[in-house]
């Protein structure tokens, strides 16, 4: 089998703050040389304290506004085709196979969840989904995620609770079948039952699409459901230690303080 690959090479990223139109744009370096290689079907967990730059890494790979790559590269290989993502727009990256489940998914009024998903599916696959099977696939997946059907016709994430937003993200993950999934604190704010439901969804999607996953989390609990092949400790904008799943267990008792001093 030919493996797809996502590589982050010596990546340095600044956050650009344009809030003060009259001032010089403020730039602050967050990522200070990140190296990471993810193959399809691998799970990499990134753990680390608040403010260490984990979400910046996720946002930078997906092409979120407000982040500037100052050096290094993000390289994606899919079906033998290798390309740099740095100069691609967010939609081009998504069509190339990148998926970001947001920590706090954005609400968008004016478009329903189902219309949004069908448009996204059409964009990613290059053809519209089969009308006869589409609705069934959508409703079946929602049922597995314990989402009421009525969410399909509601405006995207508008008035959704924290847990409902997370389920909606995993619904998208299951339907869109990316090559690489970045899950930014998907476990945060979920109760035990919801965590299990959401993790079951991630595992289903992974079994189906065989994507490589980058799992960003503070807690080891999610790793009981989704077993990581690699665990990386992130501190001060870089990976300071890597290991296998036993590293996560060690962190549970030792904490992050040893890395931040």
């Amino acid at each position, binding site marked *: 089998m030919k493996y797809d690959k996502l590589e982050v090479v010596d990546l340095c990223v600044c956050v650009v703050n344009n809030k003060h139109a009259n001032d010089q744009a403020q730039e602050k370096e967050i990522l200070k040389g990140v190296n990471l290689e993810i193959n399809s079907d691998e799970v990499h967990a990134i753990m680390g304290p608040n403010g260490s730059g984990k979400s910046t890494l996720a946002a930078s790979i997906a*092409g*979120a506004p407000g982040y500037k790559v100052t050096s290094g590269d993000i390289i994606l290989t899919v079906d033998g085709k290798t390309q740099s993502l740095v100069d691609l*727009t967010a939609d081009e990256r998504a*069509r190339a196979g990148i998926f970001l489940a947001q920590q706090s998914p954005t609400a968008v009024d*004016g478009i*329903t969840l189902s219309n*949004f998903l069908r*448009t996204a599916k059409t964009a990613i696959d290059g053809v519209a989904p089969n009308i006869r099977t589409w609705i069934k696939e959508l409703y079946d997946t929602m049922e597995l995620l314990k989402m009421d059907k009525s969410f399909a016709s509601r405006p995207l994430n508008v008035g959704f609770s924290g847990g409902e937003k997370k389920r909606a993200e995993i619904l998208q993950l299951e339907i869109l079948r990316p090559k690489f999934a970045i899950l930014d604190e998907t476990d945060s704010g979920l109760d035990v039952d919801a965590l299990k439901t959401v993790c079951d969804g991630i595992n289903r999607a992974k079994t189906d699409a065989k994507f490589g996953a980058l799992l960003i989390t503070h807690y080891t609990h999610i790793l009981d459901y989704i077993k990581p092949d690699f665990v990386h400790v992130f501190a001060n904008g870089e990976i300071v230690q890597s290991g296998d799943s036993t590293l996560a267990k060690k962190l549970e008792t030792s904490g992050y303080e040893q890395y931040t001093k």
Partner: protein
Amino acid sequence: MDKILNQSAKKHYVLGENQVLDLLVVQMHDADCEVDIKVDLEGIGSNVNIFGIYFASAGQIIQNRVVVNHIAPKCTSSILYKGALLGSGAKTSWDGFVNIGENAVNTDTYETNRNLLLSEGASAVSVPNLEILTGDIVRAGHASATGRFDDQQLFYLMSRGIDAKTAQKLIVRGFFEEIIQNAELDDLEQTEIFKQLERKIDEVR
């Protein structure tokens, strides 16, 4: 349904007893435009429904003014305008005046204007006014809101593979949907409006 389509206009309507007026104002063209509407509800039980859809592109100015005078008792009026703005110097202004006279008992009226800013550099002014000279009414209300389709929302849609222009089209179509439904526009009219809004979004470089 009376219609004012893609042109400046100044119209004055006087409604008699139980008369009904449905009016649609569409401003989806590219020229500056000013539409001034005045409706006098003189007959008992008369009823006016006014719908407006507009889309201001870069440098375009669209002005709307609506005056509804509730003169007779038991009249109803409903005003709903929605506008999208895209591009530097796109400007819209909306002034609504609903005057409930001292004899206009049992009046029911509501005026709404909503604007959606799709980019920086666009500005929407919205002023709904309401003057009430009798307290013996069913309802009198107004609402005005200007929202923004911001970078984070655009990114969210794009991060699922949807290109920027398609994202904007989806959002504006969804935003106009309330008018399309309430004004009961036929397929041809809907298609024409959607064609114009897609053209306006496609034209932006």
